[in-house]
């Protein structure tokens, strides 16, 4: 018996994509295997590690806890698209400056997760940063530096916003 398939049409990093998928394929496997977007990583595959974090309709989600068929008609953004747009360039620079990555496996998910905090909580404290990234594991134990990098970026964005208002 042939495996069931479904046709989906979605936007990925601004481009319309139309593909046939098996319903059982989750979003990150679809992005990595059908679209060669390998920046989204697959770690635990049951929603614990956060390495597969992507954006769907502007909100971060676990890419391993969503089926590709469920993304039909949605707008998906991955680290590739967000890097190209420059939206998180300052955060990526701060990660580099603060040595906030070692092996880099968690980094794409960590950046997208932190990006949501930058967008929604410009005056987040270190405690709130820790709370917000609590669902993203870094097994190189780089949390201190990651919190530093996010905090630095929040502060520089506040300074820029303050300067533009003045």
């Amino acid at each position, binding site marked *: 018996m042939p495996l069931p398939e479904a046709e989906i049409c979605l936007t990925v990093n601004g481009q319309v994509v139309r593909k046939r998928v098996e319903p059982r394929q989750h979003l990150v496997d679809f992005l990595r295997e059908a679209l060669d977007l390998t920046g989204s990583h697959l770690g635990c595959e049951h929603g614990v590690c956060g390495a597969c974090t992507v954006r769907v309709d502007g909100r971060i989600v676990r890419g391993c*806890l969503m089926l590709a068929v469920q993304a039909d008609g949605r707008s998906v953004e991955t680290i590739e698209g967000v890097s190209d747009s420059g939206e998180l360039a300052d955060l990526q620079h701060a990660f580099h400056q603060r040595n906030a990555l070692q092996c880099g496996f968690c980094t794409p998910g960590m950046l997208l997760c932190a990006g949501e905090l930058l967008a929604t909580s410009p005056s987040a404290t270190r405690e709130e940063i820790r709370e917000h990234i*609590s669902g993203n594991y870094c097994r190189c134990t780089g949390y201190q530096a990651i919190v530093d990098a996010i905090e630095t970026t929040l502060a520089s964005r506040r300074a820029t916003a303050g300067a533009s208002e003045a």
Partner: protein
Amino acid sequence: MKPSAFDYVRVASVEEALAHLTELGDRARLIAGGQTLMATLNMRLSAPELLVDISRIPGLSGIRLNGSTVTIGALTTHREIERSPLVAQHLPLLAQAAPQIAHAAIRNSGTIGGSVAFADPAAEWPACCVALDATIVIQGPAGGRRVRARTFFRNLYETDLTPTDILVAIEFPVTPLARRSVFLELSRRRGDYAIVGLALLARPAEGLLHEVALAYVGAGPVPMLARQAMAALEGRAPAASVMQAARAALAHDLQPGSDLYTSAATRQHLAGVLLDRAVTQLLSGGAAPHAIA
């Protein structure tokens, strides 16, 4: 791991979903936010023939105030509840509990209906429903029915829902202005399932506690309403002897289990520790419904 193969249908109405459930029974599974089901599919703990995606059924999402009842649609996400001004105003317990559910990315997708239907006794919403004496609204092939949360949860992962039912909404009585709430939990790491947690509501007046409701997370096969501890606190000032009696009553109210990390005895002890903390917090403020500005 990868899920085993299944077919998938996205439905546009509750009736359409019910037709699939009626045809296939427990060989079909509903998916909404998928934040529990997807993990069990990936681990092949669940292998349905058909996944019925109800996530885009119009009208099953949203938070509405109608008289003295707040109705939350089954597809409303944890994040929407966390950020809802209506919830903060009328159901502060839910606003207190929401940030303790998993992590931001999971709260963006997971739904209150999914959490309550799955009925994990370690989850936050089932205990909140029991503490607030909410009503679960269910649609089945024979029509709709309403079931009190206090009788909805029957045993571990077992509820009033049959394989051909859909949970469509939850109705919460508005918390009166004078009634305060506290939600606390202990977990090993942020966002983990709680070792034990509680939802406490009471109306403090001149140092006495009235209309006490106390429900526990992770302290039995279902969200546990602590009736004897509630009775021990009702109408009394929480002096040391009263608190001691309430903690002792928890031994009758709760049936905590053991796991790799925490023994039943430790959970029972921590339930009492949390009760002390919760009563102290409630008397020093807690969260109150807002007066309407």
